[in-house]
């Protein structure tokens, strides 16, 4: 009975979402606080997304390399230390230099409102500070990924 239920679920699930948002989740620099990133990775998986887990010790260069090689929709950085303030501008510069179509989002309880404003001014597409809901995270990421994949699909057809 259980096997039958699972099989039917796969059948329906395929119909519902062939759209798979692809998001990198990782930490910058020597930020050690991985628990949040792992939790969010699981949350996003449960929302039907494909999470490329990049773990700790990433640099702007390594994020950009992963984004290019995996053709990711979004780079998600888990922030529980100072690194995001220091390195996000460089990350955005590298993305522009390489003309990568990828959105950057930051998430973490240490991000203040003024930090958020500064990050958004520089080009960060989403910031999830303390108090944001799981639904909000999922919905914003899904929008960003959908918009990007639509751009790519459209470009394929316009030839």
């Amino acid at each position: 009975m259980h096997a039958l239920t699972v099989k039917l679920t796969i059948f329906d699930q395929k119909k519902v979402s062939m759209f798979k948002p692809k998001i990198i989740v990782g930490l910058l620099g020597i930020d050690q606080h991985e628990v949040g990133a792992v939790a969010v990775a699981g949350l996003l998986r449960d929302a039907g997304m494909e999470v490329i887990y990049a773990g700790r010790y990433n640099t702007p260069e390594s994020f950009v390399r992963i984004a290019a090689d995996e053709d990711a929709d979004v780079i998600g950085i888990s922030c529980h230390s100072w690194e995001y303030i220091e390195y996000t501008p460089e990350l955005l510069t590298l993305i522009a230099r390489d003309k990568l179509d990828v959105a950057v989002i930051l998430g973490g309880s240490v991000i203040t409102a003024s930090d958020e404003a500064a990050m958004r001014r520089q080009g960060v597409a989403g910031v999830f500070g303390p108090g944001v809901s799981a639904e909000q995270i999922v919905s914003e990421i899904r929008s960003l990924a959908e918009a990007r994949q639509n751009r790519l699909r459209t470009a394929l057809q316009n030839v």
Partner: protein
Amino acid sequence: MSSITTPHASMDLVASVLHQDRRSMARLISVVENRWPGWLDAMQALYAHAGKARLVGITGAAGAGKSCLTAALALALHARGRRVAVIAIDPSSPITGGAVLGDRVRMNKLAEAGVYIRSLATRGAMGGLCQAACDVARILDAAGYELILIETVGVGQDEVDIMGLAHTVLVLCTPGQGDGVQAIKAGLMEIGDLMVINKADLPGADQVAADLQQMLHTRSVAMQRDCPVLRTTATSSEGTNELAEAVLAHAASTPKVDQKRVRFRNELLRLLDAAIEDRLMQEPVLADFNPYTVFQTWFSPALQKL
């Protein structure tokens, strides 16, 4: 050199891939994996340019150290001047359709060395191997990679699918998996070309090696081919040079006779299966759910013409 301006149209991507443009390769993989417009034309065109690469499948139970070993092996091959790429496969959740692709996080040194790594989710495929893996391997092949390492999901006995795709199959186990090598089911023992005892620094490695040699002896006599048993400690790269040599030696040997036929058959069946399933999705109501009627209407005429 990576081209900054990535072409969009699928056939332009194919042209760039044949010129070994990395960004185009990454984009074409997405187009094909997602079945975006032009994917089939692209794969048809690429087929003629593929067939040179050796595919190395790396299988074994979860926790055996496949990711670490794949990375260490790739580094050793890369150090020998070989063009090597990695495909890392993880399972999609059958309930939510999502996946955490967590293999490449163990491959940082490899990524830093500039080796191409692509993560794939199975997206509902049974048997731990998806058609996407075959498609991606073909794209990498056409892009000029000599050796393509495919790290499979790691579900054990269901992994015989890899045999239809890989030229060289590595089967991993570790000491202390209970009762010798019980973790390696009969299916895996038969498909392996190289048996690797990872975490060989742990106690019990000798016993595992002895058990494996005994189990492989009968097979060797029957198939007239030895299956080497190697020991590695992937985290310290111990034994990986010897493993790289063994992989290259196997790659230099003649490929399995019916490899091409088996691979073709499996891929064709998977393509058909996916196409039929897509078509079934679109059919809101199948009048009387009579599979014989549907088969007759959809396929009989076409099959008769073949």
